[in-house]
């Protein structure tokens, strides 16, 4: 059955983008049901799993649109990011170099694993902005519509998300 063959793959794609495990399970189910209904439209010019993931990604966007249906006019302060800087805007704790060998596959895999944990710990809007814009390379205009934020606020969310991820990885000992 498709759920045995593709369930894990679809679930992992959803979990990389959404924190809510129950929602991820429901989206996998909806994806497989939608695929069953429209399986005749699969033309075979891509792998079947890629086709399923394409359906799932649309469903994830719909889910996020519903979750962020209200437009966010102004973002709350992010004290965690603000606290990284002194009042004059310089780093409170000077960042250090990460010793990372890009050729080291094991290190790369470990980094990916730690990054997934750090993404999971981001506040919802930052997580949505980062996963849609960076992981999925989404169009920023579409991401703004999905999350209900202005283009300026999207830049703010991405900036905060990246600094939090850097800080999280740093605390996990990356590159030491």
């Amino acid at each position, binding site marked *: 059955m498709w759920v045995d063959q593709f*369930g894990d793959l679809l679930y992992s794609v959803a979990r990389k983008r959404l924190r809510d495990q129950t929602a991820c399970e429901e989206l996998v189910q909806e994806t497989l049901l939608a695929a069953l209904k429209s399986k005749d439209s699969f033309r075979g010019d891509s792998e079947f799993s890629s086709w399923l993931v394409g359906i799932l990604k649309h469903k994830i966007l719909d889910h996020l649109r519903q979750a962020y249906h209200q437009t966010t006019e102004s973002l709350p302060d992010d004290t965690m990011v603000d606290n990284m800087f002194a009042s*004059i805007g310089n780093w409170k704790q000077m960042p250090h170099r*990460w010793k990372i060998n890009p050729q080291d596959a094991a290190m790369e895999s470990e980094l990916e694993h730690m990054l997934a944990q750090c993404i999971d710990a981001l506040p919802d809007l930052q997580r949505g902005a980062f996963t849609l814009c960076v*992981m999925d390379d989404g169009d920023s205009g579409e991401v703004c519509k999905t999350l209900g934020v202005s283009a300026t606020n999207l830049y703010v969310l991405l*900036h905060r998300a990246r600094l939090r991820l850097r800080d999280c990885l740093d605390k996990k000992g990356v590159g030491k």
Partner: protein
Amino acid sequence: MAFRLPKLFNCHVASEMTSRRLSGGKLGLYDRFALGFHLLICAGCRFVDQQLALIDAVARRAGAVPPTDHPTERDADGLPEDAKERIRKVIR
């Protein structure tokens, strides 16, 4: 009117510009100059510049769909067995 040099970036603003650049945002001539100058004199921001680019690259790779239909390539984060059972019943 006296000519005044624009204020140079601090680390906070430099990291905003680094992030904006990574997001494909266009920086004006002054912003590019100010960011370049700041990165020249601030080692911490140079490291952050590289680290944020690395984070984006790793996230982009992680977001890419595994190009295979083979179940051996599954991610460790699998669909729980009770959810599978529920879905089997619905799809049956």
